[in-house]
Structure formats: structure tokens, C-alpha cells
């Protein structure tokens, strides 16, 4: 999955030490895409919503978004900003 653009997210989480980014993707988020990300951390997938929500979380970062959206949010703890590199690599391999 190609990442078209990355922007700093407006979500004000910096005071908790996290930096959030919005990753814009070439295709809408699919169920398969979510499942491919699963090895990155613990998965919460809420399907019974107006638009299903997913979150993948580990100690250093968090990925969340909605099924069918064209972007996902990636929040990385300030001390582990370099973790973005493998996240990007994994997404772009999908």
C-alpha cells in the first residue's frame, strides 16, 4: 500500500509525549489491510459501528483508523520516533 502523504495530526496528544501523524493511503483501508497490520501489536477491531474502527497498539506506537477511510493515524511516543520507519516499510510492503 503506497503512502501518498504524511501530515502532523491535529490531535493534541503532544502533552502526553506522543506525536501523531496522519498517513494518507493510495487505497481505502480494507479488512485485509487491518489484518496484515495485526503482527505490529494488540488489535482492537470494533465492527458494529457506523464505520468500523481499528486500533493496533504496542508500547512505542499506536495505529488507528476506520474501515473504508483513505487515511490512518499513527501515534508514536516521542522517544521512539524512529519506529515510524519500520511502520512505513511494513505498510508499503502490503
Amino acid at each position, binding site marked *: 500500500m503506497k503512502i501518498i502523504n504524511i501530515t502532523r495530526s491535529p*490531535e493534541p496528544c503532544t502533552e502526553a509525549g506522543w506525536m501523531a501523524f496522519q498517513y494518507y493511503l493510495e487505497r481505502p483501508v480494507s479488512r485485509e489491510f487491518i489484518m496484515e497490520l495485526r503482527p505490529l501489536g494488540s488489535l482492537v477491531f470494533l*465492527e458494529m459501528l457506523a464505520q468500523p*474502527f481499528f486500533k493496533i497498539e504496542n508500547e512505542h506506537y499506536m495505529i*488507528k483508523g476506520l474501515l473504508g477511510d483513505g487515511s490512518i493515524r499513527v501515534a508514536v511516543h516521542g522517544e521512539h520516533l524512529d519506529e515510524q520507519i519500520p511502520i512505513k516499510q511494513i505498510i508499503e510492503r502490503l
Partner: protein
Amino acid sequence: MVYLNNAATSWPKPPSVIEAVTVALTREPVSALRSNKSASDDLMTELRQKLGRLFHISDCERIFFCSSATDAFNRIVDGLKLHSYDYSIDSHNSVLRPLANKTPYFGNATLGSVLGRAKRQSRAAHYDALFLNHCSNVTGEICNIGLEWQNYQIVHRQSGNRQLLILDVAQSAGCIPIDVDGWGVDILVFTGHKGLYGPMGTGGYYVRRGIDLRPSQFGGTGRDSSIIEYGDGDEWEYEIGTQNLPGLAGLMAGVDYVLERGVENIRTKELQLTQWLINELRGIDKVQLYVAPTADVQGPVASFNIQGLNPSDVGYILQNSYGITVRTGLHCSPLIHHRLGTEKFGTVRASLSDFTTQQDLQALVQAVSDICASLMNNE
């Protein structure tokens, strides 16, 4: 779209507010006391009178305008010679941060269940102050001002200093009746862009005549321009620089709206809706509520969490999956979260205005029900 973030800033604004700002920006500019036209002076005088009616301040000439409640509290903390102070645990950072960063003794504060307390010894200081928050922006709980003030005066009766009651009505102005003269409030701080429906960047404070509040900022006021250094006998001036007249014109239209609607009527409507929301949320499994203990002290704010999800995730889902705007986190009021046990992630907060409808709240309840049902389905 459903907007339930009125404790941050109210939206929508009454159409009259938008019109007033537009008119103020469209007509030939006038600046307070700086031209031969009296329109700006009339506006500020009239707005003081209307705020005096709303807050029950007979000496409304002592209401001064500034950019926000935060601006006002910085001026107050800078300008008062404080010997000691207590403050509400549910205070906003607009109070806590000026106290913490401008007085050297905040770090020694002791936290009780309702109040924090900081003391120092200074020969120059001559005020003991109680900074009370009228309505929590987290739980919506309304403070019993008379009781807190009475208790404070009993504890400090031996101090020998003059005691000041400083009341923050940023969350309650326009939503809950306020009686400055009746309650014996010495200093009142308000913001214009919440329950008063004015534009952002408007606010102000009332200072009882005779209180020695040295201005922290000096500059042009349009009065007595020959004075450069203020001396004994010169009256302090608090509104310095060109005033935000378009903003104040909008604020006056907002205050007009509240006065015409009647703050009691707004209170009744918002309380009814808030109680309905609380009762509905209380009936949903996995929802933990953080609200006032009884309805009579409940303001138009309710916080909650959903077990198994961070508040930020709930807010993300509500915003992006349902188009419902709430606020999540600590809401700039960090200390009360230690009492609630929510200091790590905060809460989800829904806050109402006079424009909130039952349908808005039904949409929120449905969305929260969906989230909880989906979580239970995953278990």
C-alpha cells in the same frame, strides 16, 4: 454533524452575534476614547451595564474587558499581593498555571478533597484569597459558593489579612445564575465565548472597588495621556491598548441573547437535557460516568469513559465514524482527575449549550451504545 463541545467554545452562535461583528467591522472604525465619536464608549458602557445585570454587579463600572479568562487570571495573580491562597481542585489551568508559575509557593500546596492550599510569608503581602471555580468543566458540578467561602473564612479568621473571594465563572456565565453582590464576590472572571455566545478573544473581570490590584500591563488608554508614570492618587487603568471592539460588539449581542432568553430558562433547559443524557448513559454497560452527585448541582457538562477504550479512541470514533464532536483528555483541569482516578487518560466530555437538541444527545447515546455493544461482541 453534532456539536457537543460547548465547554470549549459554544457553537453555533446566535445569528445576532455574527451580525454584530460584521456591522462592527463594516462601519467606520471607532476606538474607545480615541476619537470624537462616542460609539465605542457607548458600546463598552452598555456592555458593562448588561453584564452587571446578568451577574448582579451594581458597580458595573468595575467590570473590565480583556482577551480571555486566562488573560484575566494572569493580571490578577500578577497584580495582587497574595499572602496565601486556596483554590478549587477542579480549577482550570487558566487559574492553576498562573498560580503555579507566578507565585513561588504553589509547589508546597496541600491538596484536600475540594481545595488546594499554598502559603508564604511576606511582609508586603496583605491578601488571603480563595480562588473558587463555579462549575467544573469536567464533571459539571456546581460549587456551593456560600459554604466554601464560609468555611474558608473560619479557617483564616486569625490571619489578619483581608480575605478575597475570587470566582471563576468561565463555565457558568450565561448557563447558571450568578449573584456577585449577593455572594460577596470580590473578583469575578468570565470568558465571552462559551455560555455568553460571544466571539473567541473576549472576556473580562470585575474587581470590587478598593481592592489594590496593580496592573501588570501599561500603555495607551485614551485617558489622561499626559501621565506617563502613575503616582499616588492616580487611578489604575486596566483596559490598555486598542480594545477588541468587533469582539465586544459580538459579545454584547451574545449577552443580549442570554438576557432575552433568561438565564433561568437556559438553566432549566440545559439541566433537563443533561440529566436525560446522564440517565441514558448510566443505563449502558461499560460506561463509567463522572458527573455531579445530585441534579441540583449539575451544570451542562458530563464526562464518561468506556471500559476497554481510551477516551481519545472514543473521541476519534465519535468524530470520524458518527460526526459527533466531543472533547477528550484532561480538559485543562488536571487536578480533579486525581480525585476521579482518570489522571492517565482523562475522560470523554459532552457539553451542551442552549442550542443543543434532544436529537443531538440521542445521536451520542446511540453511538456510545454501538461502541459498547461492539466491545462486548469482541469479548
